[in-house]
Structure formats: C-alpha cells, structure tokens
C-alpha cells in the first residue's frame, strides 16, 4: 500500500508566526451518548486521556481528544493505529447506539506558532479569543474566513487547526496572509 501524504506535504512559512502543515494524523469521529461510562473509558483506552468536558480538549503529545458537540468526540491519534482503534470502539460499544468513522483522510491539521498566533486566528474567526476568554484546554469550532474549522491551543503561543482536507490550501494561505500582515496589538504581548 502506498504511504499516506498530507494535503500540503509539510509546507511551512517562516515568519515570526509560522504556519505549517503538521503531516498525517489519525482522526476518528465518535458520536454517541458522551455520558456513557463506556465512551468515557474509550478515551483512556485509545489515547490515554480522560474524557473532555464540554468545550474542552485533552492533549498529550500528538494525541488528543476533542469535545466537538454534546454527542460528538474527535480522537487525534497515530495514523497507523486507526484501524485497531475502530475495532476497539466497535468491540467496547457493541449493542450501544453509536457512530465511529475514520476521518483521517478527510481532514487536515495545521499549526500556527509564534508570539502573536492568537491574533492571527482572531483576525479570521468571529469568536472571542481574548486571553482569559479562550486558552489552553479549550476547543472552538467556528470558521476561518469562509471555511469551517476547529482549533485549540497546544501551548501558550501555539494553535492547532483542523479543517477539511479539500480546503487545506485556502486555510493555509489565509493563515499565512494573516501572519504576514503582522500583529494588530489588541491582545497583550506574548499571549
């Protein structure tokens, strides 16, 4: 089987805020009753993390589990482990109403990293990103310019962005243009 490649083949910009394609990631959408103990234990099983509270994300290294809606989680895990993870989900949730889908090749993950990364995103999304209103541990689903995107902070100056693979080029160019245009100065420096 041929090797998977990411939508933009690890493309990156090199300004003071860097925008980069972070390569291939395994992603599984899981829908079901998030209060169920089986689904909560799956978070531990699959990525070794506790189940995220509403609007929150649990991150450990490259693995993450995101709260996407009141009945939807998104697991981010190694690309090669998706098939095993899906089998594990099917086994654990046998007989319980749920939906688990491999969306690894339907999504792209980008990273925005640098001193005014927060403003690079804030310029594009109609959400409150002021420090204190949004920070590490939280996840937002909104839009960047004309496309849907989900993003969270993996560090004090780092945003991880997930969007559809089909619009990866647009997302990258949009973020790169926002970064190249420089900071607005609305947020306190270094946040």
């Amino acid at each position, binding site marked *: 089987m041929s090797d998977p490649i990411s939508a933009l083949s690890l493309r990156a910009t090199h300004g003071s805020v860097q925008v980069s394609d972070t390569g291939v990631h395994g992603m599984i959408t899981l829908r079901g009753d998030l209060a169920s103990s089986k689904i909560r234990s799956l978070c531990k099983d699959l990525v070794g993390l506790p189940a995220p509270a509403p*609007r929150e994300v649990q991150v450990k290294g490259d693995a993450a589990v995101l709260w*996407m*809606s*009141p009945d*939807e989680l998104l697991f981010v895990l190694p690309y090669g482990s998706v098939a095993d993870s899906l089998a594990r989900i099917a086994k654990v949730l046998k007989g319980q109403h749920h939906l688990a889908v491999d969306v690894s090749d339907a999504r792209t993950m980008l990273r925005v990293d640098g001193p005014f990364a927060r403003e690079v995103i804030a310029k594009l999304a*109609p*959400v409150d990103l002021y420090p204190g209103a949004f920070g590490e541990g939280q996840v937002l*689903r909104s*839009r960047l310019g004309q496309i*849907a995107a989900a993003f969270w902070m993996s560090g004090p100056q780092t945003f991880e962005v997930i969007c559809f693979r089909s619009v990866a080029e647009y997302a990258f160019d949009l973020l790169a243009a926002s970064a190249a245009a420089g900071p607005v100065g609305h947020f306190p420096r270094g946040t």
Partner: protein
Amino acid sequence: MLILHCPHCDRMVDETDLHAGGEAHVKRFGPGSEAEEFENYLFMRENPKGVHFERWRHVYGCGKWFLAARNTATLEVYGTYSAQTTEPPQAIRDAISAKQPGWSWGTFQ
C-alpha cells in the same frame, strides 16, 4: 450583528456561525389534512415587527438546532432554548413580558 447563545455549546455565537432556519413553532399538516391547513402550514408566516420566534442552527459549530426569541425591530434577544419543544418555555415568556407587556405572537401570549 446578532449574537445568540447556543444552548448546546453553552457559548455565545456570532450570527455568521449560524444558519437561519425560518420561523419556529410551525405545526405541520401533512397528508390527509385539509387544503387550507396545508396551505397555512406551508406558506403562512407571522412576519412580525416586534417579538418573534425563530429556528437557528449552529452550523459552523455543534451543528445542532435551537430556537430563539427576539425582537425584529430592536434586535433585542430575549433568550434561546431547546428545539425539542412545541411552545416557548415560561422563562422565555416572562423575559419577553418584562420588556414587552401584552405581547402576542400567533397563538402565544
């Protein structure tokens, strides 16, 4: 610009993250109903200047529907609530009455 509270995400959401779904609390009349009832269901809407009930979908976020009570003239928002209901909850009616005593909308007041 309208900013509504999504009751599913428990978060304030900008209008451009939402999709308008038309009037709320429309009662469906399907096969077997009278022609006039069907016509009313299909075409007749309140279209008020003032208190109004609408369906909205958090399309760029959780993707779920909710209902909103707002004022089409002042753009004031009285509240949002679950779409799994056939009439506005009492808390929403009270919030409207506090600002617009004597309001009515369709069969609600």
